[in-house]
């Protein structure tokens, strides 16, 4: 009887202890995950009325190119002027994205139909087209000793609760380590060719409207005379099950770059000049056609 009683007591105590531990772990994890904001849905970049809707812009309150009034150094102001002049003449200028190369930071943050997936360790921003994805690490890691250069950069973030209400509301992010050349928009508005840009961002929902997301972004770049800050805003699509288009820059691209020359494709699949009197590509590696 004593034996039976002590066995039951032991099993009961073990069960209660195990249960308490598991419940505490479950509750802790649930509480931890409940701390993160809900940024679910599809977010579309807000562009000031009257501006070209589908053109990428860094400052969404101004038109692209010169109208951005970027605080460029004289050297990079000339790069922009040259780029626009070359584009007016049919060239690509300082806009490699026309070759379906990634736009990278910060152009990629003007992409429409963004999705934010928040996990404790990483916030993912799913984009599309030639810039599909950003990973913002929030797992407390330090900067790696060596960063493999990329167009999107390496992002480390940190969640905070500035209003101290027990939930995270602000994601602060720093991004470094780039490839290039990169441009802010299709005019070729340049970032420094040394690719040493650093971006600091503050992502948060609008205080008055939870369906508006802000990305306050400041660029530190050697092509600028001072840091350049803009407040990019995105509106949440009210459809809880929005359409996600599979974007591919290559699909439907009607340009090709051969060497340093840019050509169009005609409807019948042949090369066409992009500017008046553009010479054709050199065919010296082909056998002469028989007459």
């Amino acid at each position, binding site marked *: 009887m004593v034996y039976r009683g002590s066995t039951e007591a032991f099993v009961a105590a073990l069960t209660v202890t195990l249960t308490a531990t598991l419940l505490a772990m479950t509750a802790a994890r*649930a509480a931890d995950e409940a701390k993160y904001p809900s940024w679910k849905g599809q977010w579309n970049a807000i562009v000031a009325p009257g501006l070209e809707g589908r053109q990428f812009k860094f400052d969404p309150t101004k038109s692209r190119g010169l109208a951005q009034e970027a605080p460029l150094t004289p050297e990079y102001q000339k790069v922009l002027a040259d780029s626009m002049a070359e584009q007016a003449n049919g060239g690509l200028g300082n806009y490699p994205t026309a070759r379906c190369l990634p736009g990278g930071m910060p152009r990629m943050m003007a992409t429409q139909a963004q999705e934010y997936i928040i996990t404790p360790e990483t916030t993912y921003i799913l984009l599309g087209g030639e810039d599909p994805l950003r990973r913002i690490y929030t797992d407390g890691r330090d900067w790696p000793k060596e960063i493999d250069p990329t167009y999107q950069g390496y992002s480390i973030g940190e969640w905070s609760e500035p209003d101290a209400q027990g939930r995270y509301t602000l994601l602060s992010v720093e991004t470094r380590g780039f490839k290039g050349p990169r441009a802010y928009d299709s005019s070729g508005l340049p970032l420094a060719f040394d690719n040493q840009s650093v971006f600091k961002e503050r992502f948060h929902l609008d205080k008055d409207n939870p369906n508006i997301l802000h990305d306050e972004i400041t660029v530190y770049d050697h092509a600028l005379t001072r840091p350049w800050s803009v407040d990019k805003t995105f509106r949440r699509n009210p459809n809880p099950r929005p359409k996600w288009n599979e974007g591919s820059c290559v699909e439907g691209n009607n340009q090709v770059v051969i060497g340093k020359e840019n050509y169009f494709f005609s409807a019948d699949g042949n090369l066409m000049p992009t500017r008046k009197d553009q010479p054709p590509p050199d065919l010296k590696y082909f056998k002469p056609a028989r007459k």
Partner: protein
Amino acid sequence: MMQRGRWRATAAGCRLMAAMVSLIATLSAGAGAAEYPDWRGAWSRFVVRGIGGQPSFDQTKPWGLGQQAPLTAEYQKILEDSIADQAKGGQGNFVEHAQCLPAGMPFMMVATRPLEFVVTPDTTYILVGGSDHYRRIFTDGREWPKEIEPSYSGYSIGHWIDADGSGRFTVLEAETRGPFKGRRAYDASGLPLHYDNESVFKERFHQDKSESNILHDEITVFDHALTRPWSVDKKYVRHPQAHPDWVEAYCTEGSAMVFVGKEAYWVSADGNLMPIRKDQPPPDLKYFKPTPR
């Protein structure tokens, strides 16, 4: 008597423990993410030693003809023609992906680079990279839409199953339908899917029962280019490092191949067009003014 008493005591304890475990499972379910499996990390393609060549759909067999795909006679010929064209320098039936268009399903699951699975209650994301960006498998209980926008990756709906009654989901079943885009191929040989783009894929994702760092994607293809459904068990191995390197890879970057119409050409080191195969004619330059001699 003593044995019977011990048995009663243990049985009562087990009942109590089972009740508590059930309570935990219920509470955990309410807690959300605790019921989903931990598939975090970088998952690489499982490589069977001794099988050379390019990555294949059935990882246990070589690519191309070695896959022994149950193709109809018509599509077997397309495969053979593709391989013959590639032997002469062409791209065969892999031409669209060679042009840096997405490869789509099922090639995107070959894991040319490591895959990442991001599991949330509403959607499981498979981050692929390269020309095939990612897959969304919707697990929010939605019905099939009346109209599906054609895509290379298809539209995927899944549901989670607690296959072992542990109170946690262990199996993700997914169905993926088109209409698909493309001419899609299973591998770089051009092993074709039907050009009608009406394939359907049924998948069961789950961790290996004895090795949690192996993930299975049991995938069955229903396609009009096949004489019967084709099933394979694709496996992925989880990288041990906590902070894996995610390589940013772009097909368009550094590619020395350009396409003019349906013809592929090399771009030489000096930036000029070169033939990709013997006696390939140059592109037609009829839209350019004749060069003065």
